[in-house]
């Protein structure tokens, strides 16, 4: 029972982190209709900046620089690449983001090399115990930070003029433009916000119990893709639900690995993708995604 609770809590905490990544991904998709395959590399960029600078600047300042750095990288990708595309086919733009991803990941993994970089967080490997249930401090911090950021984001999305502009642009770009919404700024800010969220997620993907930032971190970040798509690519609620589902299922599958040994070693890493396939079989648009109505 204690194991189950521990696994569920751990899963929720990881799920909240995946939800952060998926949220950024969904925001870009809503604002610009581009599926951003370079998202994992934005995350890696933010994590790398934080990990490299924390010795000189102290953790909090380094984290701030990392977040800002990832936001700048995201905005730069939008400004220098996405905006230059003059066609109208969004699946071609998705392929462009693959090209960007190849560039960024190659550069970052070359810099990281075989090293494992510590994010330099203040929590270390300390563990908090409530009764029989124990949980790493980093996991609690992840849960709180993710919950805070997601709430702040959703409030901003709902009530600020920036959020209104973004929702209007997602609803109908032409009308929004006629109403005075500057579409270029909307998509630029979407990319920047997504980068910033990814940088926070990068921190929590590299703290204890994981060894630190390494080449394989971008693989861990990829799990936000199934999270986003099983929730529904155009739904922020879906990103949250998808993130939590992926986190919990991964945690359970890893925790009960010995009972699942007939499925082979390392089933925990595979579980998110299997869940995605099952969900897509039943609901091709994802759990909360809208089946797009089309005017012919």
């Amino acid at each position, binding site marked *: 029972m204690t194991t189950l609770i521990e696994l569920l809590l751990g899963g929720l905490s990881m799920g909240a982190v995946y939800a952060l990544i998926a949220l950024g991904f969904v925001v870009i998709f809503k604002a610009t209709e581009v*599926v951003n395959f370079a998202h994992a590399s934005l995350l890696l960029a933010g994590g790398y900046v934080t990990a490299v600078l924390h010795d000189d600047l102290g953790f909090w300042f380094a984290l701030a620089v990392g977040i800002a750095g990832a936001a700048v990288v995201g905005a730069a990708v939008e400004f220098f690449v996405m905006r230059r595309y003059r066609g109208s086919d969004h699946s071609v733009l998705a*392929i*462009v983001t693959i090209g960007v991803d190849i560039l960024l990941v190659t550069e970052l993994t*070359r810099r990281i090399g075989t090293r494992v970089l510590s994010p330099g967080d203040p929590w270390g490997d300390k563990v908090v115990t409530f009764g029989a249930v124990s949980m790493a401090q980093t996991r609690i911090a992840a849960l709180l930070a993710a919950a805070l950021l997601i709430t702040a984001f959703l409030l901003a999305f709902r009530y600020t003029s920036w959020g209104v502009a973004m929702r209007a642009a997602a609803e109908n770009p032409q009308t929004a433009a006629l109403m005075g919404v500057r579409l270029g700024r909307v998509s630029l800010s979407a990319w920047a916000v997504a980068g910033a969220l990814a940088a926070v997620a990068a921190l929590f993907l590299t703290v204890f119990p994981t060894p630190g930032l390494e080449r394989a971190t971008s693989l861990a970040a990829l799990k936000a893709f199934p999270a986003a798509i099983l929730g529904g690519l155009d739904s922020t609620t879906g990103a949250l639900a998808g993130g939590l589902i992926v986190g919990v299922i991964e945690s359970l599958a890893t925790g009960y690995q010995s009972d699942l040994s007939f499925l082979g070693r*390392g089933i925990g890493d595979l579980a998110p*993708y299997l869940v995605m396939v099952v969900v*897509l079989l039943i609901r091709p648009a994802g759990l909360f995604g809208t089946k797009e109505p089309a005017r*012919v």
Partner: protein
Amino acid sequence: MSDTDQRTPPVAPPAEEAKSGRPGRSAALRTPRTYAWAAFAILLLALPFYLDRFWLQAGLFAMAAAIAAIGLNLLTGATGQLSMGHAFFLAVGAYSYCVLAADPVTENGHTLTGFGLPGWIAVVLAVGISGIAGGLFSPIAGRLRGAYLGIATLALIFIGQHVLFNASNLTGGFNGRSVPPLSLFGITFDDSQTLVGGIPFESAEKLWYVALAALLFCAFFARGVLRGRPGRAMNAIRDHRIAAGVMGVPVARYRASVFVLSSMYAGGAGVLLALVFQRTVPEYFGMILSLEFLAMIVIGGLGSVRGAVIGAAFVSLLPQLLTRYSESLPLVTAPGTGAGGIAPGEASRYLYGAAVVAVVLFLPGGLSRLRFPNLRSIRSTRTPRKGSK
């Protein structure tokens, strides 16, 4: 993508004239293009007599990649369905061939399953099994569109890696398994030497002709698909799914069938790669391989067979070129020395990553749209431009 279609008509008529052979037969003989193709074909046939093993293998990789890229281009370029999971189907093809063609052996303490079938049956079955694997994914491949399918097919990569590492009595696990040589018409494509015209032919030289034949078949088959009724339906789905449905194209069935066809192409490429490598390792069939195929078709040109071949040659020969000439290039260092420079593999990844971005932004249609100006002017003066308005 749609603007490439509008630009096709001015170029298409001479090719069709030449094919049907009615008024154009003598005209075709006079175009420099025909001679260029003939010279190119002779060059390809003669290469094994002159190149060393390194370049032959590089060429073989390029040809295998070209087959897979043609298949992916049918799916992504012509139908608009993104797949990031094609490495999985290459793995299915490669390992199916190994399992079917090998005799049961014990390697590193594992007993590896093998059926010991004749090579050509194993090849056909391996391609078929890849198609079945693609068909099993069709409930998803038929319903999802574009980039959604791209993310869904990510699952295939991870499922594939998981199975390859865990089903060790089939795949040999982490260490992989060795590939039994193909024998066809009494010729065995292994490293036993055969003298042809004074040149010792080993596996690379012999496989060269098999690969060339396979590539030619695959290219013409795909061209037939693209130019015929299915090709038009596929392009219609890509350009406007609903309009295509209204015109009577069964959208879901077409998407699923193209996915199957494309996974069979990938399976065939996997068999060829396995034969060239002579050993299959699971790590190779990861995400980077899938991304390379996408890079190939984008760089070469989406939706055309020629684009896929050009892109495959570009992406797969680039690292070999950089490796061979790493000493004489600035910034690039030989692999393994770690002397602060960029390893050839990384350097080529920078180049094709940048090429993907640059091609989409500045050269829609890819490298296959590049024309030599003099050839173009000769052709356009000779044939009236019917299609262009």
